[in-house]
């Protein structure tokens, strides 16, 4: 009986292909938008998460200056005390639960090789930096301890820098100019691609901190200290320990606030992820409105269909159809119609999301739950908006209906 009715409704939809399609457009657009947005949204979330994980998992970054968001006067009039060697030394000496501790200072600097030049992110650091950030070398070697200590002119370069200067050639042993100093390439970093914010993570040059300070920055300042937690220690536990040690070495009395900040990359990842979720939710709501419009379209066309087929309804009622038979017939038709729209919408939405993923280089992450929900929701729209027209058909008087036309 139900199958019979579904077949009947498919037939009547096929009879008016163009009209049915136009009616469906609202549902198609709505569902396509929802599916595309949710799929792109979850892809973006995954991308942001993996990007931040790439910054270093379980990583704390210490910077000088008061933590953002903590109030109090004297943000500007009070000179920011930079981080220094002794802060790093104190952490290395006293901090437990850390896998790697590494100081770093960085700057955008013009890098030159032969006639080619490139503005690159140049970082002065030590070899623990690679451990802290989970960066690997494709070839070559790290800085030796003596190179780090004496600030020898050696450097590690990222894939973008290699491509710019050497094309297919081997970079190791070549000398590049960084600002007004020169350094010898001793290794190549593994490619990491772009971050979600469009930053090229491979356009980098690493050199020993002492060399950077002396020849590029011209001071002894340290911009950041990277502290990577070991596997047993959550960053939330490590953070207060770092804070205690630094307050101690920097002699901050209990009545004063920190003059440094500690950022927990894991927390930032979570915050970013929840921000994209909120965005997705809002866009989803907008798409929901278009589904409502689609529903009204279904209602409209079903009213037309009931009117057009008044005589048919009369015949059916005369030969013994119960009210509920007519009701079900038109409800099924509305549901099949909007379900069809939903399915077309899902396909279009997935195609759009696939296209967006390819161009934005984010993972294509279709969610079966979301697709199922869209199917269910479009069926529901058909039922809800088809109900009134169907009821109208079912309530017709058979004599009036037979006389119609």
């Amino acid at each position, binding site marked *: *009986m139900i199958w*019979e009715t579904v077949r009947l409704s498919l037939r009547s939809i096929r*009879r008016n292909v163009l009209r049915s399609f136009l009616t469906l457009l609202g549902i198609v657009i709505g569902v396509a938008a929802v599916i595309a947005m949710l799929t792109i949204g979850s892809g973006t979330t995954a991308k942001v998460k993996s990007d931040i994980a790439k910054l270093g998992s379980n990583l704390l970054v210490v910077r000088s200056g008061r933590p953002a968001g903590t109030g109090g006067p004297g943000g500007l009039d009070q000179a920011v005390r930079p981080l220094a060697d002794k802060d790093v030394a104190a952490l290395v000496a006293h901090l437990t639960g850390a896998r790697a501790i590494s100081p770093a200072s960085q700057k955008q600097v013009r890098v030159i090789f032969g006639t080619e030049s490139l503005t690159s992110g140049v970082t002065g650091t030590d070899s623990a930096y690679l451990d802290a950030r989970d960066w690997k070398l494709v070839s070559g070697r790290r800085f030796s301890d003596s190179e780090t200590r004496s600030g020898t002119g050696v450097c590690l370069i990222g894939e973008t820098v290699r491509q710019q200067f050497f094309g297919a050639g081997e970079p190791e042993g070549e000398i590049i100019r960084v600002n007004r100093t020169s350094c010898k390439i001793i290794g190549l970093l593994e490619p990491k691609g772009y971050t979600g914010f469009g930053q090229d993570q491979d356009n980098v040059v690493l050199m020993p901190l002492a060399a950077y300070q002396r020849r590029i920055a011209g001071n002894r300042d340290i911009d950041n200290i990277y502290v990577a937690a070991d596997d047993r220690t959550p960053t939330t536990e490590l953070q207060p320990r770092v804070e205690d040690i630094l307050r101690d070495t920097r002699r901050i009395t209990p009545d004063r606030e920190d003059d440094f900040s500690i950022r927990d990359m894991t927390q930032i990842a979570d915050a970013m992820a929840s921000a994209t979720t909120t965005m997705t939710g809002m866009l989803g709501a907008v798409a929901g409105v278009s589904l409502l419009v689609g529903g009204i379209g279904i209602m409209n066309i079903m009213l037309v269909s009931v009117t057009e087929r008044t*005589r*048919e309804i*009369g*015949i*059916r*009622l*005369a*030969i*013994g*159809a*119960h*009210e509920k*038979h007519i009701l079900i017939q038109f409800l099924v038709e509305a549901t099949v119609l909007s379900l069809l729209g939903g399915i077309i919408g899902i396909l279009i939405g997935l195609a759009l999301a696939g296209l967006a993923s390819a161009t934005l280089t984010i993972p294509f992450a279709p969610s079966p739950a979301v697709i199922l929900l869209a199917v269910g929701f479009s069926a529901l729209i058909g039922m809800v908006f088809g109900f009134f027209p169907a009821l109208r058909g079912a309530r017709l008087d*058979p*004599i009036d209906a*037979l006389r119609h036309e």
Partner: protein
Amino acid sequence: MAAALIGFDTVWKSYGQGEAKVHALAGVDLTIKRGEFVAIMGPSGSGKSTAMNIIGCLDTPTAGTYSFMGIDAGRLDRNRRALLRNLYIGFVFQGYNLLPRTTAAENVELPLIYRGAPARERRELAMQALAEVGLVGREHHTPAELSGGQQQRVAIARAIVTTPTLLVADEPTGNLDTARTHEIMELLTRLNRELGLTIAMVTHEADVAEYAERTIRFLDGHVASDSSKLEVA
């Protein structure tokens, strides 16, 4: 055997309000027994179709009692009347009233669908009914591909596929030429004789009424005359 199938007891049917009030039926008393073939005649507007709608349980009287198979059908709700129609009554209309773009077989199956009959049984019964009305080979034609006479045969097949007790036919030959009219009337007569089908039929044509055993004439919502043919042995 001569049980009353249909009984009108001072049936009134009125339309409109106050000044504009029209009495389509004004106190009609009438009995039709099982197995009868009754022709209903009368001038336009005399209440024939109104009476037929009540007989067919499509409509209910404004006042008075209509009983069908001993049931007070005038006081049943619309869904119960739908059930009565589906189980016991077949309809044939002047304008055929077949579903367009639907094959003859599917049209004939329709009342069985609402009975919840399984597909195979429906198909078999529909084929039998179409054979009964002489439409073998036309089962898969749509109404647009059939002549008027053929369409009316499909409608008759649809009416008898449920083996009803009563066939209600409002001007069944109204749209047909003379030759086709007589074919249809012979078919109805045969159904009446062979299956014992009770037939109530409205017609304007005397030679069509000739096929019936009994003729009831309506005039201004009353039964003006009611005459039975003497069976010539």
